[in-house]
C-alpha cells in the first residue's frame, strides 16, 4: 500500500498523481494533518510495538511506500483560532505537540520507502548553495550583508550588478485589499544601494547573472525533466515568475549538458533528496548556475507545457517501489 501525506485543501501536485493511482487500481491511503487532529479517521499509535493503525490498517505491515507531499503545510490553517488572551501560547503548544507527533511517525517508519523524507521537506537555501558548489555546479557569488559599505563594495565587484532575495522560503506574499504584494528577486540599482541606511537587517545578495534563459528541472530518483523558460521580450523582469503569463515567455522542453545533469544528480544525492524542483540559469556565456532547490516544488505547469506527464512518472515511481519484493 502507498501512503500519501498531503493537504485536505487544494494542493495542485497531489490529485493528478492520485488520478494515476486510481487508474492503476493501486491501494493507497491519503492522510492529512486534519485527519490526524480532527478525528476524522480512527487511529492509534502503538509506541510499544512501533505501529500505527489507521482505520484498522497497520502501517507497519501494509504500507511500503510513503509519498510525503507537504503534510505540515496546513498547520497554520487548522490551529485553534479564537480570541482567548492565551491564544498565541496555545497555538505554540499545539504546534509543538503536532510537530513531535509527526516527526515521531517519520522515525517510526524510517525503514519505509519515502519520496521526500521528513527531515528534507525544508532545506536551507544558503546550505544548498554550498552543497551545489561542492557537487560541481556553478553558483552565483552570494553574500549576506548587513551594512551599506560592504554592499557597495560587493556591487563594485559584480560586473553585472546585484540582486536581493529572501534567505528563507518563508511566505513572501502579503495580501492587502485587492492586491497581493510579493517579494520577488529584485535587481538593485546603484542609486537604491546608496540610499540604504548604513546598517540594516541581514539580507541575501547575489551577483546578477546575465541570463540567456532560466530552467526549472523536476527531478525524481535520477530522472530529470528540464523546462527552459525562454523570454523573447527585450523587457524582462528580474524575477521570471512575473513574466510567466506573458505571450513572450515560452516554456519549452530542454536538455542539460551531461556534465550539468550529472552534477545535479550528485547534488541531489549529497543532500538526500530523491525528488525536487531545481532552478538553474544559463548565462549568455553558456554557464549553468544553480539557484535553488524546492523539495516539494510545484511541477504541474511545466509538466503540462512540455507534455512531460510528470504526475504519471511520480505515480509510476510509487507503484514500482510498492511492487518491489
Amino acid at each position: 500500500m502507498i501512503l500519501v501525506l498531503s493537504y485536505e485543501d487544494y494542493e495542485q501536485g497531489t490529485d493528478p498523481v492520485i488520478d494515476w493511482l486510481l487508474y492503476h487500481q493501486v491501494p493507497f491511503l491519503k492522510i492529512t494533518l486534519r485527519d490526524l487532529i480532527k478525528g476524522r479517521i480512527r487511529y492509534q499509535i502503538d509506541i510499544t510495538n512501533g505501529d500505527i493503525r489507521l482505520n484498522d490498517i497497520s502501517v507497519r505491515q501494509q504500507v511500503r511506500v510513503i509519498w510525503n507531499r507537504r503534510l505540515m503545510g496546513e498547520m497554520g490553517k487548522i490551529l485553534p483560532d479564537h480570541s482567548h488572551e492565551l491564544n498565541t501560547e496555545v497555538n505554540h503548544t499545539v504546534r509543538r505537540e503536532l510537530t513531535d507527533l509527526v516527526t515521531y511517525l517519520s522515525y517510526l517508519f524510517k525503514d519505509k520507502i519515502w519520496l521526500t523524507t521528513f527531515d528534507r521537506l525544508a532545506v536551507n537555501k544558503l546550505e544548498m548553495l554550498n552543497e551545489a558548489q561542492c557537487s560541481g555546479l556553478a553558483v552565483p557569488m552570494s553574500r549576506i550583508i548587513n551594512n551599506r559599505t560592504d554592499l557597495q563594495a560587493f556591487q563594485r565587484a559584480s560586473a553585472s550588478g546585484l540582486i536581493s532575495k529572501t534567505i528563507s522560503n518563508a511566505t513572501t506574499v502579503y495580501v492587502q485589499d485587492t492586491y497581493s504584494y510579493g517579494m520577488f528577486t529584485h535587481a538593485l540599482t546603484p542609486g537604491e544601494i546608496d540610499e540604504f541606511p548604513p546598517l540594516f537587517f541581514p539580507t541575501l545578495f547575489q551577483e546578477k547573472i546575465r541570463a540567456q534563459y532560466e530552467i526549472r528541472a523536476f527531478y525524481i530518483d535520477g530522472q530529470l525533466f528540464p523546462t527552459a523558460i525562454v523570454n523573447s521580450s527585450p523587457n524582462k523582469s528580474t524575477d521570471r515568475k512575473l513574466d510567466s503569463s506573458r505571450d513572450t515567455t515560452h516554456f519549452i522542453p530542454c536538455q542539460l549538458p551531461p556534465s550539468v545533469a550529472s552534477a545535479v544528480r550528485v547534488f541531489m544525492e549529497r543532500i538526500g533528496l530523491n525528488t525536487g524542483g531545481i532552478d538553474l540559469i544559463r548565462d549568455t556565456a553558456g554557464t549553468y548556475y544553480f539557484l535553488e532547490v524546492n523539495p516539494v516544488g510545484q511541477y504541474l505547469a511545466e509538466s503540462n507545457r512540455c507534455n512531460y506527464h510528470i504526475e504519471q512518472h511520480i505515480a509510476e515511481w510509487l507503484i514500482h517501489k510498492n511492487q518491489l519484493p
Partner: protein
Amino acid sequence: MTTLDVMTLFPEDMLAQLPLTFRFMTPIESSTFEENCTEYRFGRSLRHFSGQYISLGSYKPLSNIIYEDFLTQEP
C-alpha cells in the same frame, strides 16, 4: 498577471528593522495572481480523499453541442 511598480507596504521605521527585501514588493492584482486560484471552483472527491477537488473543464467540447454556439444563435 497585472502588476504595479515595485513599492513597499511598510513605513520607514518598520523597514529599518526588516530585511531589505521588504522595500521591494511587487503589487499583483489578486484576481490575476494565478497562485491565488481565484478563478477556480472546488468540489470534493471521496476517492481522492480530497476536500478541495479542483473543478476543471474539458480541453475539448464534450458533444455535438458547442455551448458557445448554442448560446449565441437564434432559436
